[in-house]
């Protein structure tokens, strides 16, 4: 098992407006992209973020060697239960995910 961030160049996350969060996996090269594209199961990533799989939008962007996941924030940005105003720490879960 290997951590995603050992294979990928960078994993980042950010709000996409107050109601969405988006996570970008920059694989860095086509070999890493091909490896992670197969290893990152959409259902497993949905489970990692405790979301229904139908909530996730996934983009495998070959030209950029990027895999992108977007989903509605379970807590709207800034609401009383929000823990991460900019959604930037969400990336750590995917970066540390074992494939």
């Amino acid at each position, binding site marked *: 098992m290997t951590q995603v961030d050992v294979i990928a160049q960078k994993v980042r996350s*950010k*709000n*996409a*407006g*107050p*109601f*969405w969060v*988006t996570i*970008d996996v*920059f694989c860095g090269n086509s070999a890493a992209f091909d490896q992670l594209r197969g290893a990152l199961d959409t259902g497993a990533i949905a489970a*990692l*973020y*405790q979301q229904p799989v139908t909530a996730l*939008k996934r*983009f495998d*962007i070959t*030209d*950029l060697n*990027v895999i*992108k996941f*977007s989903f*509605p924030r379970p807590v*709207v*940005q*800034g*609401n*009383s*239960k929000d*823990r*991460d*105003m*900019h959604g930037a*720490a*969400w990336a*750590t*879960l995917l970066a*540390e995910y074992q494939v």
Partner: protein
Amino acid sequence: MPTRILIPSGVLCLGFDRDALARGVAAKPDLIAIDGGSTDSGPWSLGAGQSKYARSVTKSEWRELMLARATAGVPLVIGTAGTCGADACVDWMYDITLELAAELGQSLRITRLYSGQTAAIVTDALHAGRIKPLHPAPDISAETLSQMNNIVALAGAEQIQAALNTGADIIIAGRTTDTAIIAALPLMRGDHAGAAWHGAKVAECGALCSTNPTSGVIMVDFDDAGFTVEPLATGAACTPHSVSAHMLYENSDPFILYEPGGHLDVTGTQYHALDATRVRATGSKWVPGPYTIKLEGARAAGYQTTLLAVLRDAHYVSNAALWVEKLGAFLIALITKRMGLDPATYDLDFRLIGANATLGAMENRTGTPVEVGVLLIITAPTQAIASEIGKLANPHLLHYPLTVGEELPTFAFPYSPAGTDRGALYEFALNHVMHLDDPMQAFSLVTTQVSP
């Protein structure tokens, strides 16, 4: 007609490279555009109608841009003035501009574009079926709309063009899309529409589309077939990868971007390196659609008081979750007994810093930290109640024992008083679009001439 837009940085107050800005001015741009904010930092700015940035920094940077405008002799446009673009923030930015005009001895034609919406206008539109929810959207009604502290509509290119048509030297715009202030002029001059919106999206965060994201200044050339983007700071470069990857940033869909009156589709865009620093992009498509504008609204959702205690005792550190569970139950019972409050009317939220304060229930790592910060966030209907609960909680957060009969523990408080009143907690309460028959229907322009 080819159009050159100079973007000093991704947002006013983020700083920019002075030499790069001077190079941009020397390159004779047709317009200087800078963003003044976004929803990025949360709902406070829109709820309170205040800028999150320091006035001193805003004024200091705006002074440099006003001087650059005077040298370039072209319009200077700021979008989403004062972080959220509420009318009060437009006026705040206008006051700063007037002060600077006097200090710099500049004669100026200044146009303000107001994006604020009254609850009545939006309610009428709701009843007329002209409001559509985006996904996911909070439920709205005449009642919830009347509770909003501020509602703004995101202006597009048409409203910026109307402001440019006033002959303004400086445009202070309320809420706009990040791209509109850049795309407006090339669109007005008949440049390629897909390129205008795409080039604007690439440049709206300043040098974030380059290999040196903090260097600030970006210049974009638009024409009838595409756009060319170039970072102006020494050592910064745009590459096909850095430019195309920017569509990923803060976008849930990396190929589609919705704007008033249509959407941008970059699925078929081709990126070419012209040289070591410049990238040209062609093939971006603009797809016209209904004329809808996005709405943003914020309302107060209670008032907060916070307290912070730090656990350093190893036994308490390893039992922090159990400790706050017991303390929380104890406090709720005490609040009922001493204050007579129904627990449903307030909220006690403990965040364990060092355990799972960031990710909450999603956290899947465990460990033994040296210490754990216990942040208690109290949310109540009024500040007085939140503050009172904070004072009630204070001695127990300091001394609450994990087990009966043990010697009274005392935890670390970092400051006195332990409680901090945070004021109103605002929440974003709109994720909707409003249909317009005329782009200016929901916006207004005010033009003034100022002389030193």
